[in-house]
């Protein structure tokens, strides 16, 4: 029987992963969650202890700011392979194929960890939102350690020491896009801070989220990192996505590919984004944004 360990960082991603794991192995595996309440400076020590006690075959970790540091570090310490940002996990007889995106999602590659088992557990990370929320349950090892200031304890002697000195809540964008059913997205083609504010107004008016592309973010028109959609930002799955002045770069398109309906407005009739849209409108983005603001809900 395989043992599957999941690192629980106190957000839904651990249960999304558990749901996926159970869909692969059902009752053929033993599942265990390791919980330590985002204790960033102690995560390595606690994970190493849990792994030594449990000897899992697979370790699955949410690709968060914390998980993205823990997973590759464990890879070196356990001398094993780590698959990053899986978009799917496929059981192939005795092997597990981790489906991993590259080149902004333009290409998906199978990754295997040959010889995986308790000696060299296969490790993989999964971005939040990749798999559906799940009410699945399993055994939990709760270290009951909360995040607090203090030295980084990496579980072994390292040269150089750092201390966590401050924990500040982040300022968030006006609307959270990761769960939004409707998204208005501004690309480089919106061209100004004014138009970004109008996108936010549209989101407010119609009850959706305001997102942006990386080039729009780089222009400092107002959106912050939490609004960016794409492989290095948020992955969204709205019922309707409406892109204004979005060119269709691979790393953005990968973040919207699971939207039910994609509408794109772009004044360039050859924009690449039209090939991945359900509906295209060759219009000046601002004109359509203004017209939508005039419409009633």
């Amino acid at each position, binding site marked *: 029987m395989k043992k599957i360990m999941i690192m629980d960082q106190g957000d839904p991603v651990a249960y999304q992963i558990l749901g996926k794991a159970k869909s692969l192995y059902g009752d053929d595996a033993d599942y265990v969650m390791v919980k330590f309440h*985002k204790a*960033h400076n102690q995560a390595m020590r606690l994970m190493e202890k849990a792994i030594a006690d449990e000897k899992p075959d697979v370790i699955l970790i949410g690709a*968060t*700011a914390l998980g*993205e*540091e823990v997973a*590759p*570090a464990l*890879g070196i310490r356990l001398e094993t*392979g780590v*698959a*990053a940002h899986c978009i799917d996990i496929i059981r192939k007889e005795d092997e597990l*194929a981790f489906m991993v995106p*590259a*080149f902004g999602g*333009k*290409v998906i*590659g199978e990754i*295997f*960890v*040959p010889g995986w088992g308790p000696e*060299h557990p296969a490790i993989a990370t999964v971005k939040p939102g990749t798999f559906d929320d799940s009410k699945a349950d399993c055994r939990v090892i709760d270290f009951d350690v909360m995040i607090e200031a203090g030295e*980084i304890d990496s579980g*072994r*002697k390292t*040269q*150089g020491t*750092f*201390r*966590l*000195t*401050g*924990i*500040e*809540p*982040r300022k968030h964008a006006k609307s959270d896009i990761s769960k939004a*059913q409707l998204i208005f997205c501004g690309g480089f083609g919106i061209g100004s801070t004014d138009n970004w504010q109008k996108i936010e107004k549209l989101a407010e008016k119609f009850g959706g989220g305001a997102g942006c592309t990386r080039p729009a973010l780089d222009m400092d028109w107002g959106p912050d*990192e939490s609004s960016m959609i794409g492989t290095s930002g948020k992955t969204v799955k709205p*019922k*309707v996505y409406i892109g204004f002045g979005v060119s269709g*770069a*691979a790393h953005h*398109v*990968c973040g919207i*590919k699971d939207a039910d*309906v*994609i*509408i794109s*407005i772009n004044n360039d009739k050859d924009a690449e984004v039209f*090939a*991945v*849209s*359900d*509906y*295209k*409108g060759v219009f*000046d983005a601002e004109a359509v944004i203004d*017209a*939508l603001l005039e*419409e009633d809900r």
Partner: protein
Amino acid sequence: MNILVLVKPVPDPEKYNEIRIDSQTKRLVREGVPTVINPTDRNALEAALQIRDAMEDSTVTVLSMAPEFSRDKIVECLAMGADDAYLLSDRAFGGADTYATSYVLAEGIKKVEAEKGLMFDLILAGNESADGATAHVPVQVAEWLKISHISRVCSLNVEDELIKLVKRSEDVMLSFQGEGPAVLAVTRDINKPRFVNAMGIVKARKKPLTIWSNEDMKLEESRLGLEGSPTQPGELIAPHMGRAGEPLVSGDATAADAAKAILSVMRKAGV
């Protein structure tokens, strides 16, 4: 302060739509896609240059593992302002996953340190490369070297020997302070990288660029490349993301008509 910056030449992320898989060979075709310095590595280099320029007796060294044809990208780092550079280049290094790549880089760092007779106080890297985007390598290099590591660093200051930084997490900003050696992986919002100017290009020609193959490195072949990689690649697929691309409205419609059509799609979808 002696700073080392890890740099990776990558296919230009602006051109990823041109990358495809050959239907016969099933291999990646990236013809015509130029090579650039990985964007966040430029942020790492900029951060290093800013620290050096503010502190006496500081140096910035660039290290990269890449095929020799990307040598001019390393020269570009020298033109941006790095003092010297090392390029680890050997066929045996190719095909490596992040485990085997970080091993070679860590061994490269040790060899540079031995040559120079110093220890780097700080090793900076971009948080992730645009191509593979695993964000593994900075962490794994630190693990091989048994030094501290912090990723997603969006702000960095060095006062005397004290390193102060901010890491961005999903819901909180985490402040850390401490002393090196450490590998810090920086995000793209930490700074705006400088452009290369003509003076920089002239100066770069006189700066030392050392290329080491495995004859110089003398690493065991079994630890390198695909053979030294605990992950093994299977098939590559190009996901089909194409959609119908139907006109939202007829050719002579106005923006107001388009807005009405959008509303109608929204209503039909129940949002």
